[in-house]
């Protein structure tokens, strides 16, 4: 997995206290400032610690890796930036240079070899500041947390896959209120990383970059590691994939897979508990965001219609009927109740568990249904302020929580779609 050249670099680094990874793929515009921000953050907050910056490059063609190395050597020399120690930057091709997959296996192996106590992954975003380093590492390095999940300042309609699907599931099923269980900036402890590193059976080809933190979040929650959240700042939308199905494969697919392996844990979990928050509360900004809600509605309608045979093998008759009725509603009177959405998701999860049809098809079939819920969220909240959005999400989460016993029922073989 690790090339000889990379191993040689690691030998020269030796044991570290802190590891900061910056995955890149054609990020030449931002990687330089990000590396300098990371370096400044380490110098300011951890001047005595042994640290390494790992650039896991997915095969960039714009010189991102070289720029990262250059930036780490060209900090201006002044009192604020002089370090006690040699600062190391190592570069590696993640997954043999194919951007399709993420860099987590490489990072976990590196963290294990270097015995890093605290690790952070930072996206090559223009919003990264030196303070991000402290916020992601300090709770692990000095306060004994094992996972640090981010909170971002986001547009109210940004990150809807998280807001209306992943977060409610995380809360209801796993009992932890982790708002961003699948982000590109997060921190984890060496011991959490080592424990996941050993569970290589959990990794699949489709656990890409998007789902890396989700993998860690679920592992941490499943095994009882302490988790906290930190407020970082604006979320970069530049690198986000707009292709829904691959994103759902990585995130929802991972979520559903973990329901299998972690059944003993989640079935006993009681009401959701908040995770400690470090830093300021999240704000939702009202900057414009271009979304075409009506296209969503169209795709939902056609999806439900065209996929009736598939949906009938996944969903109960009642749920399918309710969904079909929902799809028949016009744009202006559209209503997709939270309870129906939660019920639908749970039936999909159970179908995935039982593999009633190809699991990949199950995920693909969820996509148009999800779009229906997105459309409903958009039109309902188009004039809503931040607090109202929060209340809506809270209500959605409560619906998921209330229906958890239903999921358990489905899981144990009572109800569900036709085999």
């Amino acid at each position, binding site marked *: 997995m690790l090339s000889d050249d990379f191993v040689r670099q690691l030998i020269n680094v030796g044991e570290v206290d802190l590891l900061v990874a910056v995955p890149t793929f054609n990020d030449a515009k931002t990687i330089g400032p990000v590396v300098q921000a990371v370096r400044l953050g380490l110098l300011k907050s951890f001047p005595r610690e042994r640290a390494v910056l790992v650039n896991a490059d997915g095969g960039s063609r714009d010189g991102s890796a070289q720029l990262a190395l250059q930036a780490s050597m060209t900090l201006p020399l002044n009192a604020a930036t*002089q370090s006690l120690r040699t600062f190391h930057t190592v570069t590696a091709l993640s997954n043999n240079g194919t951007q399709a997959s993420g860099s987590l296996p490489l990072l976990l192996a590196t963290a294990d070899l270097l015995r890093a106590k605290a690790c952070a992954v930072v996206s090559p975003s223009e919003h990264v500041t030196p303070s991000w380093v402290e916020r992601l590492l300090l709770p692990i390095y000095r306060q004994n947390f094992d996972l640090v999940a981010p909170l971002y300042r986001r547009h109210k309609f940004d990150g809807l896959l998280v807001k209306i699907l992943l977060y409610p599931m995380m809360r209801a099923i796993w009992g932890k209120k982790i708002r961003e269980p699948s982000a590109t900036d997060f921190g984890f402890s060496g011991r959490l990383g080592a424990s996941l590193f050993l569970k290589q059976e959990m990794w699949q080809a489709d656990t890409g970059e998007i789902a890396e933190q989700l993998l860690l979040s679920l592992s941490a929650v499943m095994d009882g590691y302490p988790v906290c959240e930190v407020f970082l700042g604006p979320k970069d939308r530049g690198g986000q994939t707009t292709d829904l199905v691959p994103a759902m494969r990585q995130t929802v697919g991972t979520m559903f897979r973990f329901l299998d392996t972690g059944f003993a844990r989640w079935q006993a979990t009681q009401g959701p508990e908040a995770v400690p928050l470090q830093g300021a509360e999240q704000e939702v900004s009202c900057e414009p965001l271009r979304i075409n809600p009506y296209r969503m509605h169209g795709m939902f309608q056609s999806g439900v219609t065209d996929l009736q045979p598939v949906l009938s093998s996944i969903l109960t008759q009642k749920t399918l009927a309710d969904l079909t009725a929902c799809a028949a509603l016009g744009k202006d009177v559209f209503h997709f109740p939270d309870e129906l959405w939660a019920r639908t998701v749970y039936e999909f999860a159970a179908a995935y568990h039982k593999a009633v049809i190809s699991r990949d098809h199950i995920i693909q079939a969820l996509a148009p249904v999800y779009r229906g819920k997105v459309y409903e969220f958009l039109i309902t909240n188009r004039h809503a302020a931040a607090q109202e959005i929060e209340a809506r999400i809270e209500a959605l989460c409560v619906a998921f929580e209330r229906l958890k016993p239903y999921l358990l029922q489905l899981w144990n073989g009572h109800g569900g779609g036709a085999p």
Partner: protein
Amino acid sequence: MTDGLWYKQAIIYQVHVRTYYDSNGDGIGDFAGLAQKLDYLQQLGTTAIWLMPFFPSPLRDDGYDISDYYSVHKSYGSLDDFKTFLNAAHQRDIRVIVELVLNHTSDQHPWFKESRSSRDNPRREWYVWSETDTPYRGTRIIFLDTEMSNWAWDPVSKAYYWHRFFTHQPDLNYDSPAVREEMWRVMKFWLDIGVDGFRLDAVPYLVEREGTNCENLPETHSVIKELRARLDADYPGRMLLAEANQWPADLCAYFGQEDEFHMAFHFPLMPRMFMGLKLEDRKPIVEILQQTPEIPSTCQWCLFLRNHDELTLEMVTDVERDYMYDAYAYDKTMRLNLGIRRRLAPLLDNDRKCIELMNGMLMSLPGTPIVYYGDEIGMGDNVFLGDRNGVRTPMQWNGGWNAGFSSADPESLYSPLILNPLFGYQAINVLSQQRSDHSLLSWMRRLIKVRKSTPVFGCGSIEFLQPANHRVLAYVRQLVNEKVLVVNNLSSAAQAVELDLRPYKGHLLIEMFGRNIFPRVGDLPYLLTMGPHQFYWFRLRRI
């Protein structure tokens, strides 16, 4: 190398006569006693002794407050005793460097007593007086733990006098030609007796000027140039060593154009050696040496690990100082005046390998090494003795009465002995270590012998190698065709290191202690594996 440059190959041993050996049973070391220990110093490999101030003094600053420059403190013997010691040293090819405090005197010195007695006294201008305490505002205070100001009010003279050190140490006024002439006469007195050089204390502070920081002023350099010119004219081959705790660029100025000091202590390097060891990273060491400008070919750095003062942390950044305090002086009792008042062995937790590594670097980095008395056997310290007295305890010769230092009653010794089971004289003493080939003392002798086996270490250039493993400090010393490769593992764990030795392709490496041959340098990086805190000295020979 001409004998005029003897100091470049010297191994200097720093000692205070009071601490070394008491010949007359009064509890205080003396020159007659020191003379009896010259054989020991010769066997160690010492080629020069630096004597701390031994002049008459009220001893409120351990002799750095001088009240008579032309005599010897009666506790240490007579002027004749000194001459006897000097001759005995010279017979063993050991030179003697005398420490002279130029900047200030004791307030008990007759000169100051005269100066303060009246504004009309001929010696009035021998010191720096003022009606107010406002001149030279902003000048830093050196003894931060005890002094609040560089001015002190004199009730006799009803005026303020300037003192950069303790209040009882008024600064001499080097704007006075009479002062300069008198201090030359002092030096001449001792040169005529036969001393080989002077270590001049506190030289940056000789002259003050308004609007400056009163350190390293051009006028101070003029004073030094004047003294050096007279020394060269009348006493060729004698040496001047500067004590100037300054950054490298300011330090280099004290060499002048080979018309000021012959040698100067490299103060900024010393704490960084300790830092590099604790960080397990060569960065602090390499950086400070790379920032050190070239010095004239007849000049030389003096390197040291510890001395009679606190391990000074003046020439480091605040971040570095905090790190050093946390790493080496976790107990605040150990801290004094922006420094750490501990000896070498306790600083290094009595780790033999670390002690060896640090001495290895001392002996192989560019400069003349100084060994502080007692560090060759790993003596301990006593931080509870106040000021810097904890690192100035009696030399431990054996495990018997008063550690073999004195036959006096223990209660009458000038200082208590070190007694704890780890560093006490029963555990750490010369006699015990002489009986073992594997003791620190025996090892130090061998180290010094290997150091002296080649002029490269004293006179050669240095080129740092930059292996990717930052825990290894590696450099090549070269003098004409002679080359020595030094590799130091700063880490407490075993290390592998690949060295780029392509410029030396075809050379054999010959390890200098065991004289075994290591593989020839080829095209590939030269791989070495090193144990914790291990170091290698290799002669590079093309055979």
